[in-house]
C-alpha cells in the first residue's frame, strides 16, 4: 500500500507535514487503536482515526442506535435506527477508508474481558458514558501499560486528558473512585450540546495521532477543561499522586473492579 499512487494522494496532506512525512504516515498505517464507545465521543474519534489511516481500528459498544443519539453521535444516521452501533460505525468507517481494518466488538466491557480486548492495541480511547466503565478502562490500561486518551462531556462542558501509565498521572490520581450511583446526572438527565462531543472527540483523536507519531506535547499531566458556553479552554496541571490507589506507591487496587452500573 505504502508508496502506491493512491496512498500518496490519500495521505498527501499528512506526508507534507514535517512532523509526519512518509515514515510518520506508515506508523499510522501500522498502528492499532481501540475506541471504547461508539457514541458522542467515539463518533468523531473513529471517523478522524479512520481518515488518518490507522491500520486497525477496534470499536466497542453494546448498544443499538436510538433516535435521541443522532443529535450528537454523527457516525450514525436515521437509516441505522435499532441497528447495533458497532455495525453502523463499522460501515461508515469502511466506506470512508476501505484500506483500514475495522474490528467491531459488540459487547459490554467488564473485568472478565477488558484485558484480553486491549492487549493487541497500541492506544486506547475512552469514549464511554458512565463511571464504572471509565474506571475499569483506566485500571486496565494502567495494568497493561497502554496509553489511554480520556474524554468526557456533559451539558456544555467537556474534558480531555492523556494517560501514559507510570509515566504520568492516571484517572484515579485525580478521581480516586466513582461517585456513588445516582449522585451525578448522566446525559439523558442533564442534557448535552451535541457539538461539544465534536470538540472533545477531535481533541482525543489528535492526541492519539500525536502519541503514535511521537510528536508534540500530549495532555499527559494536563487536564483540559472546556466550557463551551464561555468557549474557554482551561488547563489543570495534574501530578502523579503517590497515594493513587492504582498507580501510587502502595496500590490498594490490584485487580479489576466491576462497579455497580446505574444509568
Amino acid at each position: 500500500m505504502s508508496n502506491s499512487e493512491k496512498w500518496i494522494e490519500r495521505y498527501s496532506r499528512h506526508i507534507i507535514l514535517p512532523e509526519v512525512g512518509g515514515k510518520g504516515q506508515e506508523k499510522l498505517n501500522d498502528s492499532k487503536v481501540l475506541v471504547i464507545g461508539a457514541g458522542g465521543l467515539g463518533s468523531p474519534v473513529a471517523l478522524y482515526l479512520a481518515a488518518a489511516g490507522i491500520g486497525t481500528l477496534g470499536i466497542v459498544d453494546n448498544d443499538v442506535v436510538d433516535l435521541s443519539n443522532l443529535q450528537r453521535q454523527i457516525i450514525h444516521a436515521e437509516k441505522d435506527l435499532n441497528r447495533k452501533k458497532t455495525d453502523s460505525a463499522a460501515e461508515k468507517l469502511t466506506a470512508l477508508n476501505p484500506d483500514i481494518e475495522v474490528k467491531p466488538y459488540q459487547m459490554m466491557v467488564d473485568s472478565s474481558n477488558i484485558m484480553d480486548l486491549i492487549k493487541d492495541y497500541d492506544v486506547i480511547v475512552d469514549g464511554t458514558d458512565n463511571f464504572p466503565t471509565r474506571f475499569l478502562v483506566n485500571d486496565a490500561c494502567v495494568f497493561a501499560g497502554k496509553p489511554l486518551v480520556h474524554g468526557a462531556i456533559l451539558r456544555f462542558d467537556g474534558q480531555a486528558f492523556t494517560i501514559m501509565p507510570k509515566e504520568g498521572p492516571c484517572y484515579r490520581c485525580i478521581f480516586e473512585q466513582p461517585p456513588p450511583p445516582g449522585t451525578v446526572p448522566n446525559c439523558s438527565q442533564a442534557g448535552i450540546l451535541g457539538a461539544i462531543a465534536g470538540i472533545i472527540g477531535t481533541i482525543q483523536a489528535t492526541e492519539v495521532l500525536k502519541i503514535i507519531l511521537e510528536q508534540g506535547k500530549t495532555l499527559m499531566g494536563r487536564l483540559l477543561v472546556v466550557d463551551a458556553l464561555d468557549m474557554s479552554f482551561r488547563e489543570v496541571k495534574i501530578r502523579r499522586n503517590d497515594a493513587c490507589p492504582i498507580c501510587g506507591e502502595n496500590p490498594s487496587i490490584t485487580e479489576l473492579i466491576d462497579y455497580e452500573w446505574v444509568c
Partner: protein
Amino acid sequence: MSEFPVDDSIDLRGVLCPINFVKTKLKLEEMDDGDHLEVFLDEGEPISNVPRSVKDEGHQVLKVIKETDGNYRLIIKKSG
C-alpha cells in the same frame, strides 16, 4: 550535466502540486544524508512551489536548470 553526480532521479513532469512535492519528499526520505536527487518539473506552479517546499524541509537546492523544452531540472542535496 556532470558537475553534480546524482544518486537518484525522479521525473515529475505532468504531476500537479502538491503531489509533485509529496513524491519528492518521499524519495528524499529513502535517500542518505548528502545524496543528490535530480527532479524534473514543469514550469509555472511546480517550479515556483517545489524548490521552496524542499528548502523549508531543510534540504539544499543546489541547482535549478531550465531545459530547452521549457521544463526544469532540479538538483537537491538531502540534508538532515
